């Protein structure tokens, strides 16, 4: 696996090959899997991702809590009517980012890319690009490889966990992965893939994880939209030849540092941010916890136990 974007770029440049090829070679060497095996598995993952997007765009089914549902479908209809000033591509991205997150929030099947809470971003960007640019599934599988290489670097240097590093670590990482993939799919060279990562992540630094009611719903779904749009903007800048003055690896490192210094309230504990606004608190009280299919009667309620203990917000190191 890779531990620096610089290293990936150097290897790709030395071999005169695209980033996806370098990541594929490394995977074959690390795992002992053949190229065919890796490609077959990538195609399976792509299939699950596509299914989630399609289900999300079609269904109005509510999330487990009832807070989400139907947004992706409504936005897609609005796009098809031609209302989006931002253009059809961005509108597709916005609809598709919501679609996967809605499926995720109703405990549907998704692919964590790199996490479930950020699983809307990569499929939104890849499938929208496929529709717009007529890309094949083989192309998209190569996009997944580019994204995976970037994700490996972020995991090695920082974190992709909201509990460890806030939302910047989840949606920021997913967006950086998607931006790099999009850039290479559009013919960008390895250096512009690196620039896409830097441009994306610099704009997501400091973003907290503050889920209302502790659910992967609000604001996770709309943060996925923000991340996906940021990824597209970053990729456009990189393809235009713009350079961000701070190298990608340094931006990743500082994301990790900010995450480590982030107050515990802002790391997926639902103890700060939007989660503790008056409306956030009210929604947390009102959400439907149990659908008819759930039965918690043999489970002690952790909050009852918590109520009997003094509140002691320890600072969990990551």
């Amino acid at each position, binding site marked *: 696996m890779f531990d620096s974007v610089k290293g990936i770029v150097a290897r790709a440049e030395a071999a005169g090959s695209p980033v996806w090829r370098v990541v594929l070679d490394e995977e074959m060497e690390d795992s002992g899997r053949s190229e065919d095996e890796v490609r077959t598995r990538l195609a399976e993952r792509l299939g699950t991702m596509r299914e989630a997007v399609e289900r999300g765009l079609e269904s109005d089914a509510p999330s487990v809590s009832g807070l989400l549902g139907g947004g992706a479908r409504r936005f897609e209809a609005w796009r098809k009517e031609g209302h989006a000033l931002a253009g059809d591509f961005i509108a597709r991205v916005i609809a598709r980012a919501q679609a996967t997150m809605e499926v995720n929030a109703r405990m549907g099947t998704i692919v964590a890319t790199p996490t479930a809470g950020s699983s809307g971003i990569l499929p939104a960007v890849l499938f929208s690009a496929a529709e717009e640019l007529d890309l094949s599934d083989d192309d998209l599988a190569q996009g997944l490889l580019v994204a995976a290489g970037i994700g490996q670097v972020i995991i090695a240097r920082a974190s992709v966990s909201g509990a460890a590093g806030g939302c910047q670590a989840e949606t920021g990482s997913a967006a950086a992965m998607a931006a790099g993939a999009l850039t290479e799919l559009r013919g960008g060279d390895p250096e512009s893939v690196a620039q896409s990562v830097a441009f994306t992540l610099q704009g997501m630094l400091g973003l907290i994880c503050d889920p209302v009611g502790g659910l992967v719903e609000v604001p996770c779904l709309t943060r996925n939209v923000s991340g996906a749009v940021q990824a597209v903007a970053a990729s456009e800048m990189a393809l235009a030849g713009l350079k961000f003055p701070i190298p990608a690896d340094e931006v990743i490192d500082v994301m990790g540092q900010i995450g480590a210094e982030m107050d515990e309230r802002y790391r997926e504990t639902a103890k700060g941010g939007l989660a503790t606004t008056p409306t956030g608190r009210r929604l947390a009280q009102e959400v439907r916890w149990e659908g008819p*299919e759930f*039965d918690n009667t043999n489970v002690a309620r952790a909050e009852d136990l918590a109520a009997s203990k003094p509140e002691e917000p320890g600072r969990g190191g990551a």
Partner: protein
Amino acid sequence: MSVFDVIGPRMVGPSSSHTAGALRLGLLAGAALGTTPKRATVGLHGSFATTYRGHGTDRAVVAGLLGMAPDDERIPRSLQVAREKGLEVAFEVIDLGPGVHPNTLTFALEADERTGTLTGSSVGGGAVKVTEVNGREVEITGEFDTLLVVADDVPGTTAQVTRLLAERAVNIAFLEVTRRKRGGEATMIVQADQSIPRDVIEAVQGFEWVKSVRRLQKVTE
């Protein structure tokens, strides 16, 4: 770390750390017991303690204890499945202190005469880190098929286990042997690149100096 750990796992939502990662810790805890538990007490530390319910952590943990994979569609109703199978689970909020990873679970499991414990953290994207199994400090990430052998501290035990593995072309990635005191009880942790065959495990169990064998299966991609 495989490409498929980053583009994956394929899973039932909504959270890779609080659902898929929690499930994997449940799976490994069940493996530490060596059978499906009848009673489980699960401690929730840090972020797990405050957001476990909205993330379906309770259902995921129970699904893991029942041996389900992260993309098993029965996860949303695993609590029901647990009742049907006679598994009783209690969750409690715990505080392991500030130095412990914010997503950490502790398990105390029972089945008939057996007991098992496990402590582990869900470190992001479905990845896990197990720090304690059955009272022994360990460092297991579920990236390898792992054998945990508790044995008498007598000469030649390591050689006998590694020979069995070598005969089946199983390559050892990491090997750790520790003991509490000379001639007492030794713990051997073997992490392998390949899946450890069942008959090897049975052969190890058959050695007279072996007290217990547990296989903690590979849970990553």
